[in-house]
């Protein structure tokens, strides 16, 4: 457990410039196990850009992201993180089960089996349903199920509550609290007010 307690994500002096427009400058944060980092700000203020910089999809125009003190481009970061972006990253021609099996093959098995994870996101019994027959909210829940079946400590979530109903949002909040109490950490953007009881939430406001 000790090694897990030492996990931390650190950003220092980050800046992002897009089309000559400075989105943010000199941004710094430190996130430890059990904490949540909530990025707030208007549309186009650079929330998604910051998430993509943390994922390594984009180079920051200055500054560094470190995972446990090391630069993120060593592969340990990628075995310990999971990202759910605007796009669900699931194939509509495959069934629910086939999609999750591919995700599992690309990563390490995590805390829950596929069946347990489907039950958790209330998609039990949909194993053999083609994803194109699911509703938008169900697709979202399926992509979030991916977080449960793979081994990871850091969740990076871009607007995870999009197209979810009230129960769906409550469900994801419960999963997030559970993840944090198990020494996980979460970076997310959200327009919704999130209710995470007993969890240390840091907020960064981008403007």
């Amino acid at each position: 457990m000790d090694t897990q307690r030492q996990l931390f994500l650190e950003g220092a002096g980050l800046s992002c410039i897009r089309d000559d427009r400075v989105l943010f400058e000199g941004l710094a944060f430190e996130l430890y196990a059990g904490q949540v980092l909530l990025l707030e700000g208007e549309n186009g203020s650079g929330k998604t850009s910051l998430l993509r910089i943390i994922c390594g999809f984009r180079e920051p125009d200055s500054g560094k992201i470190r995972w446990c003190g090391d630069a993120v481009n060593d592969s340990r970061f990628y075995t310990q993180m999971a990202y759910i972006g605007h796009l669900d990253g699931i194939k509509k021609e495959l069934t629910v089960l086939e999609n999750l099996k591919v995700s599992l093959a690309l990563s390490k098995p995590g805390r829950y089996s596929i069946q347990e994870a489907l039950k958790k996101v209330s998609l039990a019994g949909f194993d053999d349903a083609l994803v194109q027959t699911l509703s938008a909210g169900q697709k979202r829940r399926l992509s979030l199920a991916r977080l449960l079946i793979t081994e990871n400590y850091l969740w990076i979530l871009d607007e995870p509550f999009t197209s979810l109903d009230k129960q769906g949002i409550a469900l994801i909040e419960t999963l997030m609290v559970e993840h944090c109490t198990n020494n996980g950490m979460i970076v997310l953007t959200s327009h919704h007010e999130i209710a995470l009881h007993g969890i240390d939430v840091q907020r960064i406001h981008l403007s």
Partner: protein
Amino acid sequence: MPLPQAFFALIRRDLVLALRRRSEMINPLLFFILVITLFPLGIGAQPQLLKAIAPGIIWVSALLAAMLSLDSLFRSDFDDGSLEQILLSSHPASVLVLGKVIAHWLVTGLPLLIVAPLLAVFLGLPGHSVGILLLTLLLGTPVLSLIGAIGVALTVGLRRGGMILSLLVLPLYVPVLIFAGNAVEMAGTGLPVDAQINILISILLMALVLAPWPTAAALKMSIN
């Protein structure tokens, strides 16, 4: 899971996807057959001429069919975000990309090999050149997929990348076309073709080893 399992899971996923949307698989094949069957009609009753240009016709058609199918290699994964997930995997992206290219060749390249003998006989190619034709297609079409993958990876982020893709990729296809076409032609006159086949083998091995890296790097650039 270990890398080999991830590699084969990705190949299996792409094969299942191809089976569920068949048009991707059938379009290049149909194009290949149509172009080749149109040539005898266009040229008229000149069996000698047809026989002489048959290797070129078949190879140029195979090359264009391969180009036609390239866009589907990463397009849907790029559009639905699966590509991000693949690149975020802790496994080396180049190996996973190679899996995708292999699946793509099995779906679009292999069918060409299966119908090629029939079309070769149709164009009047002598029996012993048909074997060499098949061998050159077997060695050459994977190279088209591997080299094409670099071009698609570079252009998948552009909305209208089709023209740039052909400009990027066609010059790199020329060596394969020259050696393969030449081998089939020489086989028709009874000359040895070992040299051409050896060169094709070396091109294939080089492409297998060298193409996945730039492809993975280009994909990382494209999703930015």
